C-alpha cells in the first residue's frame, strides 16, 4: 500500500488548515451549485461571479474531509480571474489526472496544473478520488448554471 505521505502532501494539509476563498457570494448576480458525496457526507457549495467570459470571483462553502476541502480550496485559486474556457480546460486536465474519463473525444488540453499536481497521489487511494473531484464536479455544475 502506498504511504500516506503520497496522499497528505504538505501543501494539501496547508489548504485544509487554511482554506482559500471560503464564503458565499450573493446570488444573483453570482451563480452557485451544491455537490455532495453520499459515501462520506461531504458537502460543497461553489459560488461563481462571472463577468463576460471571466470568472471574476469564486467562493466555496461546505464541509468535508481534508482531500475534498483542500481540493476545493486549490480549485478556487486555480479558477479565480480565469476565462471560463480556460477553466473548462483545467477541469478536464484535472479529472484526467484523477483517471476519470470524459466523453469528449478531443485530446486532453495541455495546461499546467501547478499546485494542483499535489493531488496526484490521491489516484493511489481510489476511494478518495470522489473526495478530490467533488469540488470540480460542483464547479462544472455552477458553470452550467451560468449558461
Amino acid at each position: 500500500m502506498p504511504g500516506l505521505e503520497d496522499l497528505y502532501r504538505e501543501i494539501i494539509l496547508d489548504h485544509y488548515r487554511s482554506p482559500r476563498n471560503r464564503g458565499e457570494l450573493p446570488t444573483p448576480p453570482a451563480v452557485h451549485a451544491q455537490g455532495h458525496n453520499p459515501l462520506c457526507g461531504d458537502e460543497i457549495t461553489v459560488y461563481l461571479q462571472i463577468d463576460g467570459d471571466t470568472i471574476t470571483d469564486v467562493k466555496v462553502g461546505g464541509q468535508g474531509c481534508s482531500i475534498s476541502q483542500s481540493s476545493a480550496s486549490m480549485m478556487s485559486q486555480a479558477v479565480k480571474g480565469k476565462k471560463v474556457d480556460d477553466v473548462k480546460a483545467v477541469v478536464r486536465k484535472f479529472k484526467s489526472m484523477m483517471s476519470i474519463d470524459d466523453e469528449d473525444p478531443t485530446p486532453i488540453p495541455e495546461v499546467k496544473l501547478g499546485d494542483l499536481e499535489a493531488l496526484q497521489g490521491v489516484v493511489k487511494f481510489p476511494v478518495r478520488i470522489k473526495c478530490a473531484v467533488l469540488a470540480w464536479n460542483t464547479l462544472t455544475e455552477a458553470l452550467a448554471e451560468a449558461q
Partner: protein
Amino acid sequence: MSAAAVDWARVKADFPVVNGRIDGQPIVYLDSANTSQKPHAVIDAMADFMRHAYAPINRSAYRLAAAATDAYEGARTKVQKFINAPKAHEVVFTKNATESLNLVAHSWGGANLKRGDAVVLTHMEHHANIVPWQMLAASHGIELRWIPLTADGQLDLTNLSTLLDGAKVLSFTAMSNVLGTITPVAALCKAAHDAGAVAIVDACQYVPHNVTDVQAWGADFVTFSSHKMVGPSGIGVMWGREALLDAMPPFLGGGNMIADVRLDGFTCAELPAKFEAGTPPIVEAVGLGAAVEYLSGLGMSNVRQHEMHLTDYALRTLTDRYGDDITIHGPRNVEVRGAVLSFAFRDIHPHDVSQVLDQKNVCVRAGHHCAKPLMRLLGANATARASFYIYNDESDADALADALDGASDIFGL
C-alpha cells in the same frame, strides 16, 4: 456455560478473513455493525450444499428437490428457535432487513393506515426504518412522530404516552447502529399495545449480539439481516404474528406466493410462501441456518457478555489514552449499549481518521451510517465507527488506540 467457558481464540480462528493479512500485516476488522465476517461453518455449509445438494425448492417431486426443500425449511425452523417465535411459518425470508421493513410498512401499513393516522419512530432510526414510512406519508397521508433522545443517546421517553396517543404504529430499533444504544424493547412494545398501536422492532443490530425472544418482547413484527450475524448477504428475516400476517395483503407478486392464478385474479398461498414471491435465496437460507447454529453453539448470552467486556475495555482504553481528544457518542453504561463505538477524534475528519487507520489495516466505517437525522442531531456530517464482534478481542481495541496516534502525527494536532 459462561463467557469464560468459550474459547474466544478458537472462535477467531474460525473466521478466515479476520485471520487474513494485507501487505503482510494482520487485519483488525472493526466493522461488524456494517456487516460481519463469516466462519468456515457457514462457508462450508453453503459450498457443500451447492456441490452436493442444490436443487429447486417447493416445485418438484424428485428426491433431490425434496431434500433441498427440507434444507430451506430447516433453516426457517432454526431461525424460529433462535428468536423463540411461536411458529415456523411466521418466519418470512426476505432479501435483507430493509426489505423486511418495507414489507411491513407497505403491506401491513398500506392496508391498515389511512390519512391522518400516526406512526411513531425515533430519532435514532436507520434509514431503512424511516424512508418506507416517509413513502407511506407521501402516498397515504400518514403523520410521522418522533421519540427524541437524551443527552447520552438513549430514548427520551418522558412524553411517550403523548406521542403514542392515537398512534397506529410504533416502529423502533432494538439497538442503534450509530450509538450502540439498546432500547427497552419489551416496555416499548407494551406501551404501544396499551395505546392500541402495533409494535415493530428493527432488530438488525440486536439479534446478532443478544438473546432474542420475540415473545418475551411482546412484539408484533421483528426484522433483521443474516449478513450481520455471521450469515451470508442476500437473505433477511421478517417475523410477524400469525394473525397479522394472515390478514395482510401480499407484498410482491409472482411465483411461489400463489395458491391459484386465473385470468381474472389470484389467491394467495398460505404462510410463509405468501410473502416469498419468486425463487428464494435457497443457498443463503442454508448459510443462515448454519450461522444460527454456530451462534447458538457459542450461546447468545455468552456473546453478549464477551461484547460487554470488550465494549467496556475499548471505552476505557480510548478515553484513558485520549481524554478530551476523543468524543465517543452514546451511553457509557455497557448494560444499555452494544459494541458499537462512534467517535470524533480531535478535529480530524472521520474519512481521514479511517484512512489513517486503514494504513494499519484497522477497518472502521466512516460516514453517516444510514442515519442522517441522527447525525444532524449529533451535529456531525459523519463519524468514525468501530464495532466489535465475537472474533474481536482486547488486542483489537489496543490496535485501534495505537493506530489513532498516526492521525495525530499526520495532522499535527
